[in-house]
């Protein structure tokens, strides 16, 4: 899953246009929302679009979303588990 996590960090920075942040700065176990990256609720919606556009993965409800967006690691695990097999 490490390659996915690395790619995901880059995609998050690009999708959310985070300045002053490099992939190395992102702690994959830190809270994704409301954490040091300054990601807010609008950004979370943008991440939902990213998941659907890039990985064809959807998040069905808020409770699932809370678990999925808990950290970069949990986000990667959800993608890994739910993305369509090639």
């Amino acid at each position, binding site marked *: 899953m490490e390659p996915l996590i690395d790619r995901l960090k880059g995609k998050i920075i690009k999708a*959310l*246009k*985070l*300045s*002053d*942040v490099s992939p190395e700065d992102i702690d994959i176990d830190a809270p994704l929302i409301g954490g040091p*990256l*300054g990601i807010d609720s*609008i*950004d979370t*919606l*943008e991440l*939902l*679009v990213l998941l*659907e*556009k890039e990985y064809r993965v959807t998040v069905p409800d808020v409770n699932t979303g809370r678990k999925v967006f808990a950290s970069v690691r949990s986000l990667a695990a959800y993608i890994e588990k739910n993305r369509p097999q090639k």
Partner: protein
Amino acid sequence: MKTPLFLDAFAALLPSGIYSMRGHVPWFEGQTGPQDVLREQVLDKPYPGFGKLHIADRLSFAAAALLFSHYESCAGDETGITLGIPAGSFSTDLQYLETVENGFPSPAIFSATLPSSSVADIAIFFGIKGPNRVFAGTGTSGLCAFDLGMIMLQNHKASTMLVVSVRALEPAHMRSSLLPAYAAVENSAYAFLLTREKRDNGLNFRVEASFGKGEKTLPEQAGESYFDKLVHLLMENQNGSISFVTGDYRGHISIEKEL
């Protein structure tokens, strides 16, 4: 009798460079104007959200950040904000339309299609909780913002008012046929801090202004270029008066150093 008001701090992003209470700094090589402003040129601490600000939000925020970088904090509910933004969110609207056409409408871009999002970014970051108003979509939006800023002080709606006037378009949209002529001008952003009380670290310019409609008695000026003149007076630490006529809106702003 009107309460004396003070213009206590200013900052501007203009085609030639950055203007602040510390002086003028030209753009770096490769920067073509205010649209290329970097976070580190206006703010001395990291702000991951700076890069995601859309152009009008970014220039408004940058002007406010530059002003507050040389001034004490104005956090709290005694400080208000007025914003004038002639082109509204024109560029952001077009960018949102592109995402719609691509099949994945962007929520973040959609939220920035409200011109008031510029005020929100400033208010949240600097902890400003007083009243705020936005004027968008007319050539006199900046003037109206300055006018209302003074009215709010006179009426004790706030003790300090941050007035921001911004002209912000993505370069690709400057020649759009959908753009009103009054909005198709070079990018710029101005921030002025108006107060009811002199502050130790402020400029201490007493400011008076009158705005209104009436017969044209003054020479016509292009757009809102009078803000350029106001900034130059402030930079030179000079007393002066600026008269303006734009459309059927006219009046003057005068500043006088209080010793």
